[in-house]
């Protein structure tokens, strides 16, 4: 079959119930206020009985194991292109077609799960938006894609910080990088400037230069220039 070289867009299925944090049971990720108010029965009991503490630790381990199992399961049936969740029939006829784009937004992929993405040697675009388990270690793991990766999106990943962004310097072919809404980055404006210096051919979107600067009071003289353009 002389099928044209179509680029396959791979979208992971939205696992609605699965992106619960590892510490969801303990409620530790919740801010201080809600932790005090909404104490669950197990939390209350564990303060008073040692065995309940053991039970909670056991449940915690189970939850963490679940994250691993989801990734492994996904690695076998990683591709779910249809919104309806079904394989298109033509898919099995394209085993040799190189994958050019992967969209893993919102799914629980972690460091070990990315091993499968790294096998795709001609990957051009990778989208890791809102992935709760993608952190700085995962970004350092992306260096094998340096020759082909041109677009990377990390918008909304809660555990990515400027240290992970620094190790994207291996990806010299990157043309578009989206770093919007990264809560763990301490100084988004300065980070954007430094990342742009690091990757001169890349367009960095998502972080405003003035973000992180204190807003100037009204009495400043009018001839003060707007935020510095490098």
């Amino acid at each position, binding site marked *: 079959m002389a099928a044209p070289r179509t680029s396959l867009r791979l979208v992971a299925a939205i696992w609605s119930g699965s992106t619960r944090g*590892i*510490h969801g*049971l*303990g*409620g*530790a*990720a919740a801010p201080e206020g809600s932790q005090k108010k909404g104490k669950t029965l197990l*939390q209350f009991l*564990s303060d008073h009985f040692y065995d309940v*503490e*053991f039970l*909670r*630790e056991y449940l*915690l*381990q189970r939850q*963490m194991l679940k994250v691993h199992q989801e990734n492994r399961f996904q690695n076998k049936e990683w591709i779910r292109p249809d919104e309806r969740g079904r394989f298109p029939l033509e898919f099995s006829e394209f085993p040799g077609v190189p994958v050019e784009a992967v969209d893993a937004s919102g799914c629980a992929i972690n*460091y070990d799960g990315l091993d499968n993405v790294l096998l795709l040697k001609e990957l051009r675009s990778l989208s890791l938006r809102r992935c709760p388990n993608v952190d*700085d*270690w995962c*970004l*350092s*793991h992306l*260096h094998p894609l340096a020759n082909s990766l041109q677009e990377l999106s990390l918008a909304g990943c809660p555990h990515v*910080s*400027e*240290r*992970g*962004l*620094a*190790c994207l*310097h*291996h990806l010299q072919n990157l043309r578009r990088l989206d770093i919007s809404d990264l809560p763990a980055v*301490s*100084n988004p404006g*300065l*980070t954007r400037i*430094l*990342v742009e*210096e*690091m990757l001169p051919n890349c367009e960095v979107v998502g972080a405003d230069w003035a973000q992180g600067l204190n807003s100037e009071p009204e009495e400043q003289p009018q001839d003060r220039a707007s935020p510095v353009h490098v």
Partner: protein
Amino acid sequence: MLRRALRLGGGRGLVTRGPGSRGGGSTPGKDWDGKVSEIKKKIQSILPGGAWNPLYDTSHLPPEHSDVVIVGGGVLGLSVAYWLKKLEKRRGAIRVLVVERDHTYSQASTVLSIGGIHQQFSVPENIQLSLFSASFLRNINEYLAVVDAPPLDLQFNPLGYLLLASEKGAATMESNVRVQRQEGAKVCLMSPEQLRNKFPWINTEGVALASYGMENEGWFDPWCLLQGLRRKVQSMGVLFCQGEVTRFVSSSNHMKTTSGTEVTLKRIYEVHVKMDHSLEYQPVECAIVINAAGAWSGQVAELAGIGKGPPGTLQGTRLPVEPRKRYVYLWHCPQGPGLEAPLVTDISGAYFRREGLGNNYLGGLSPPEEEEPDPGNLEVDYGFFQDKVWPPLAQRVPAFETLKVRSAWAGYNDYNTFDQNGVVGPHPLVVNMYFAAGFSGHGLQQAPGVGRAVAEMVLEGHFQTIDLSPFLFSRFYLGEKIQEQVII
């Protein structure tokens, strides 16, 4: 407390004859009145509400019995405690006590370290230990998860190490990288031209080859790791005590080897732990002692009698670990290397890395043998930076010609004078003392792996995951050095 009990004669004699009531030909009547008032005072103090209390608080003392006593509460000691509790066969099977002299960790090597981790060694076991530590740190929130506690953020910076070599050292570097890649480390070799393309701020004069770690290498916050281990280990039931080990009491067993020579095997059965600023001590009965005292492991080993014997024999072989002082300087350089700068180690031995987003850098240099500073205190010598550290760094990175030193600190390196690699495992003669010390500057990065190895040795009797038999104590007596091939 104790002093009060002693003052009252330990509860024995309540009525003590004071010096004033003796002597002088006072009438019996007057004498009797004095005695009565004294007796009244004593009776009042015993009654509830009084000053005398025969039962006093010992909550600051360690327990009287403990299966394992770990001397030293730094990252290595806590790592051994963690793995002992993790690998024990039944929950609560082993009682572990960690004795740490300084609960503020003001002189501990762990917290004064720059926190680097790399796999660029030449000894395969070192590479395996570092690889395991990298995966431990990567999954730290699974290993050290405590219910209800927030997850740990190690602030890991995965930027890698860049080692530079001159013509002389290029062959060594190539063979080292081959070994590293065999073990699974992701290291690549770079020529001077590739170096210039990748890091334009390097002056490649004199550099023939460079090895660059792509993954699993970088630096992190050692204090966070220490606190995470401490928290987890406390939740697993390990007991902590702040005190100093002053004495080991051991029993001896005279035996004959198969060839007929006499050998004395010792077992430590009691550890005396002395409290701070006090003469009070607690004898802790124990089965196993782990020496993880870092820079002071040599002194702790001497307490156990290791090295007391005619030189050249096994009894006379000391633990060759001593404290060495190392300086770390923090400076600001506005035009310095950018965000992608790895930890660069120059041919001269000087190293530096970036710290934070604000163009601050920290670095230092290991001085040559003859110029070792005095390890008596942790004061910093800024002249060392001017004379020895700045020139090679400024030559390698021209931007560093203008810099301003912000601050500096000094820390101890538990330096193994024999071969600069760690000592792990039991002592052949003092059979229940296990070592986990002497790592000479890479203890922090190998702590998880070493902790697991020592725990396996204690619980199973042999190494299971990583075979650290080349690191046993007996190599000091047999003269078998495992030395890193240093790249010049």
